[in-house]
């Protein structure tokens, strides 16, 4: 790739391009080496507190000192194997949904259905396991729980909402339209506030939902409304002939949707659904405003510690890297799906 010709065509194709290239190279040369020095070469990796970081580089020791909290929050140390088990099983719970050529996919798909229930059981505790209150959860655990939990539980809801919005029954479609447009019209923060402050007022005494679940409810409602619009796009993209053919065969409404329309419509909406899921995953960090300690919340708590004052950049960079890995990974996946869908369609057209 890096041939003389390539360089000439892509970097020095004209006078203006040559000037731009030179300026950019100078700019990068003056920025990247100091950045790497700060990030790696001059960084302090192990120290007891802020004063231990004497070098000019980053003070990564704060991350090491708080690593447990970043991963598990305040989950009791003796029970932490449960969280580790949840983490370890996560690939088996998610991969079968995303990867259609996975070996033993059918068996794993059954596991993927069981997995969410297993997660609730392992994290909360239950018969045979000590109960761990959700206010002990935090860090990556909480971020993943809210993000993935919200996405997975909201998915069936968004299908129902999308079908409802396109329903021929005026009352059903009106209810769905109002719900979807209302949720999409307000910021997630107000929904989180709604969940944390108003939900207790709406429910009878004794029926207490903990803060994490309240946040999860808000996240699910939010994602369901956005997902519904994406699914609706897929439903609208279906040629009318598909509906007519299904009806001509005498299929009922549910048979038509479950067997003919949804399998095709969902397939083309998956890339867009993954994109809204990425958005939601990022948005879960808003829960810090209702006092939950997700990754960002734990980071802020670490910053408030007098032992580690003024290490904002280190903490924020660390959290950013974690979010980036997840979100960038998923956006690559959505691109890959889009490409795959395109080639699928091409082969059909041939």
């Amino acid at each position, binding site marked *: 790739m890096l041939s003389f010709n390539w360089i000439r065509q892509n970097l020095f194709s004209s006078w203006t391009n040559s000037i731009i290239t030179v300026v950019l190279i100078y700019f990068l040369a003056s920025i990247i080496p100091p950045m790497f020095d700060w990030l790696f070469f001059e960084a302090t990796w192990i120290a007891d507190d802020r004063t231990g970081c004497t070098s000019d580089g980053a003070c990564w020791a704060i991350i090491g000192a708080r690593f447990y909290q970043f991963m598990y929050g305040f989950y009791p140390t003796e029970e932490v194997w449960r969280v580790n088990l949840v983490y370890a099983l996560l690939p088996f719970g998610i991969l079968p949904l995303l990867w259609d050529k996975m070996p033993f996919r059918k068996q794993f798909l059954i596991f993927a259905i069981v997995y969410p229930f297993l997660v609730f059981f392992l994290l909360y505790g239950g018969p045979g396991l000590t109960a761990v209150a959700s206010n002990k959860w935090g860090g990556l655990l909480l971020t993943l729980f809210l993000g993935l939990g919200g996405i997975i539980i909201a998915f069936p809801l968004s299908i129902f909402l999308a079908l409802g919005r396109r329903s021929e029954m005026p009352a*059903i479609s009106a*209810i769905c339209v109002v719900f979807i447009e209302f949720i999409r019209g307000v*910021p997630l923060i107000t929904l989180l506030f709604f969940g944390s*402050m*108003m939900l*207790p007022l709406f429910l009878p005494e004794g029926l207490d939902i903990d803060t994490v679940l309240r946040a999860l409810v808000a996240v699910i409602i939010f994602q369901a409304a956005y997902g519904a619009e994406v699914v609706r796009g897929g439903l609208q993209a279906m040629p009318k002939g598909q509906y007519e053919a299904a009806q001509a065969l005498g299929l009922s409404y549910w048979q038509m949707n479950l067997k003919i329309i949804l399998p095709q419509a969902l397939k083309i909406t998956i890339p867009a659904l993954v994109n809204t899921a990425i958005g939601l995953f*990022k948005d879960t960090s808003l829960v810090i405003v209702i006092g939950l300690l997700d990754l960002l919340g734990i980071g802020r708590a670490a910053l408030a510690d007098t032992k580690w004052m003024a290490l904002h950049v280190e903490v924020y960079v660390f959290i950013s890297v974690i979010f980036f890995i997840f979100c960038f990974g998923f956006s690559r996946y959505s691109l890959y799906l889009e490409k795959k869908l395109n080639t699928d369609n091409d082969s059909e057209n041939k």
Partner: protein
Amino acid sequence: MFKIDFSDQKFRAIIIQTIVVGLLAYGLYWIVQTTAYNLEKRNIATGFGFLNDPAGFDISFSPFIKFVATDSHFAVYLVGLANTLLISVIGCIAATFMGFFVGIIRLSSNWLLSQIAYVYVEITRNIPLILQLLFWYALLINLPRVKNSIAIGETFFLNNRGLNSPQPIFGENFIYVTVAIVIAIIVSIVFSRWAKRTQETTGKQYPVVLINFASVIFFPLIVYFISGSPLDFENPELKGFNFVGGMKIPPEFVAMFLGLSIYTASFISEIVRAGILSVSKGQIEAANSLGLRQNVIMNLIIIPQALRVIVPPLTSQFLNLTKNSSLGIAIGYADLVHGFGGISLNQTGQAIECMAIVMATYLTISLTISFFMNIYNRAIQLEGR
């Protein structure tokens, strides 16, 4: 006699809808009952009377409305609304310019330039906005103290208390300049329409852009000088421990501006890129073979077609930015959610009323933006033939 036939679709639809609406109504009734009971039990007042009570707290940032602690909660609402709208409008404008710039750079023939734009887009859009806001805010409040402010030119000073910039002071006669600007804009719109009609009927072209540009710039400028230059700038000056004069823009606002516009710009740039790429190559080749000049191809062939693809998703980005401005609460920007939905709510304890007002306001803003953008969208869409 009335016959019950469950195989009749219309009849079934009525039954299902009646059941759903009935359940919904009962659910709402139950919630209202429970809520009323809970509120009474906790001694929480209801109604909107609290809007007239004095707020009792100060709002540090209120550039348009004068606010003191004895003002009512309704004033808190107005200040918050003004601040939300301010950051949204400025953020949308900045994000649009940045987004178009980055989107065009992404398509540059210079590999290095387009890669830098790509890295920028991927980094900013894959990191939560709230994290970026906190990051900018942390950087800003850890800037040097006022004494050692970073000077940008001789007029802007950046320090840990925010940005000190020149303050425009409008003289009495400035009203004439404003009127001149409005007249110039109206005249250019009328002129554009007339020129377009003339071109369609006779084929004669006028340099519309040039003439409009000149009239919008020069006419107000002439009026400005005739009316005696009624606009002054007051520069900030360091006196003792603080700056005197000029505008003080708090770090919260600067962080919100940077965070919102940089984050949204990366999404807009992708929309712009997709829009430009969506114009089929044949269109450009056809224009080239007709011998049109490059800028004509850009203005008359590429941009009008790309805009059709760009505008709908751009609208939703504006909506997102407006809703995302509610994240200001994380860094203490005095917007609607922070002031009215946060402090007022905690002081009065009337969560339901406060949240209802905040949600209704955002809903109104969202619906208004999409209403106007839909009108614009319809205007530029391809007319069906």
